């Protein structure tokens, strides 16, 4: 489904070009759950941006669903992001003045035409992340974990093939992190492909495959024999409100 061959990325910001990715090869099948890990500066976010079609590689080939996407037009990239990908960010990035429902509806705005059942689908996505009671709350009126679940619903609503999550638990407490991770694991169990960037080992080990980057190169690419089940971890936590 995803095939990267010798992907490089060099930024030209300062006087000297800064190479970030030095030739990444990656092959992913539909339904995989991959976490990309590495120390900061290893290029994991850049790789995710390229995989998420937010950025173009400087060199190499990227085939998504069999077609080359490393050099297609901006508009085509936008169309593919809208149709095939869903994003979750560390800082949630919800629109502050829109309620949960309106935030989840956002991808439909750019889908060419607004589907007639958009509202219904947005409600379903929100209840999928357990927020059916928060439809009309604004981000400011919800906890961080709830905000991230709204963001997850937004990533889900267009029924994308791949969900890309960039440090989705970075701003969350342990319970909220586990909730978000259990949702991602659940989605993966339903067959959705998931790409996760994290520097947290505990989170990374909840994926079924871990790609480790160091200085722009793949250092290891391993299957996780027994991924940690977030739901089980959640059960071991003391009930909310109790200081443990």
């Amino acid at each position, binding site marked *: 489904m995803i095939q990267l061959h010798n992907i490089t990325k060099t930024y030209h910001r300062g006087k000297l070009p800064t190479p970030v990715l030095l030739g990444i090869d990656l092959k992913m099948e539909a339904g995989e759950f991959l976490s990309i890990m590495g120390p900061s500066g290893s290029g994991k976010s850049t790789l995710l*941006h390229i995989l*998420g079609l*937010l*950025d173009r590689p400087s060199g190499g080939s990227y085939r998504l669903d069999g077609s080359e996407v490393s050099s297609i037009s*901006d*508009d085509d990239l*936008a*169309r593919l*992001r*809208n*149709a095939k990908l869903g*994003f979750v*960010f560390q*800082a949630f*990035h*919800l*629109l502050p*003045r*829109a309620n949960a429902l309106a935030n989840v509806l*956002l*991808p439909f*705005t*750019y*889908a060419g*035409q*607004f589907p007639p059942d958009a509202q219904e689908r947005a409600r379903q996505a929100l209840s999928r992340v357990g927020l059916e009671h928060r439809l009309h709350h604004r981000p400011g009126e919800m906890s961080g974990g709830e905000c991230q679940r709204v963001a997850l619903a*937004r990533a889900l609503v*267009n029924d994308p093939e791949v969900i890309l999550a960039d440090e989705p638990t970075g701003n969350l407490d342990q319970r909220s992190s586990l909730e978000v991770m259990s949702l991602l694991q659940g989605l993966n169990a339903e067959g959705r492909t998931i790409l996760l960037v994290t520097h947290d080992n505990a989170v990374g080990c909840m994926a079924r495959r871990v790609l480790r980057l160091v200085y722009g190169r793949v250092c290891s690419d391993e299957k996780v024999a027994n991924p940690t089940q977030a739901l089980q971890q959640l059960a071991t936590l003391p009930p909310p409100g109790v200081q443990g």
Partner: protein
Amino acid sequence: MSLTWRLLKAAFTSLWAFRSYALLMMIGLIIGIASLTVIHQIGQGTRQRVLSMMESMGFGSDAFFVSGGGGRLGVRRGMKRTMTITPADAEAVSRLDGVAQVVPHKNVTRTQVSAGARHTNTRVRGATPEWAAARRWGVARGRFLNVQDERRRARVVVLGTTVARELFAGMDPLGRRIRIGRTPFNVVGVLESKGSSGWRDRDDMVLIPLATAMTRMSRDDKLSGMRTNLEDPGRREEIKQEVTELLRRHHKLGPGVPDDFLIITPEELTQLITSQSRALVAMLSFISVVSLFVSGVVIMNIMLVAVSERSYEIGVRRAVGARRRDIMYQVLIESLAVSAAGGVCGLALGLLLSGLATLLLDVPTAFSPTGFIWALSFSCLVGLLFGLAPARKAASLDPVEALR
């Protein structure tokens, strides 16, 4: 369309959420549009007031005025014209099909009039008995000039109230004798007071029979002009043309020779009277446009800052599939919403202010559709024009950068 509607709704929602901030942002625009509106309201009001004054003088859309002397319509006050219209012309025009009535008059030069030791300088006009009805100007005391006066070239006079006051100072002028120049006249009536027309005192005048003016008070046999009333206002242009041809024929004007007379409609006269205020309107409009331009620059700057502050929102929109042009469109819609809202506020303020001006200062104002259209189209133009730079900036943001 759905996207536009959604973006407009979102733009107005956030405008409302930041209404005090937005008000500051739009204040220049509001003031500019308000003053533009007030200016147009006053211009329109003045025009309507002059026009209704002419209607009150019976000079409506079913009439025009033929005066002697040709050339362009200039400032008529104190200007001498060569008189060219003869009583025979008036007679011929009155027989044209569609002409209801021709009311000729002759102005004698401003003359000294005296009663005993008191004297004043006033306009002396020769008029026919129909003049009073045609001008809708009745007498307050005594009678108006009649057919016998005209036939006998009688030395009788009807006084305007200003002249009556100057000469008789509260005493009853009826039956008294005054001198116009050296010629003695009997006072038979006093006109109703009409007050000022805005540029001259309409009561500062005396009326004598036209025949008397033509024979006793003047050496030429030319009329100053004739009011021509029509049966059907719809045929005015056509009859104007016929009158022109008739007068050119009578005056033996060859082809290429300019008219030696002038036909004026109430609308043209209104334009002439309001031309000074129109120059003022043009100047103030210009100032408003400059202030609108400045307010556009203010809006542009604030929008540019807002684009930087909302870069992550732009990043998110790009991530979920917005194209560059979608972002550009959104920012343009937002600046359009700001400027349209400012335009509507300015228009409301302008209507309020011109209403107050009428109420408190008796400034004539009237709803001006052109002012309305100018206000709204100008504010939208400002929004589009000055939204362009922020829109381009927003569209050119790199999604990865925007999300950082």
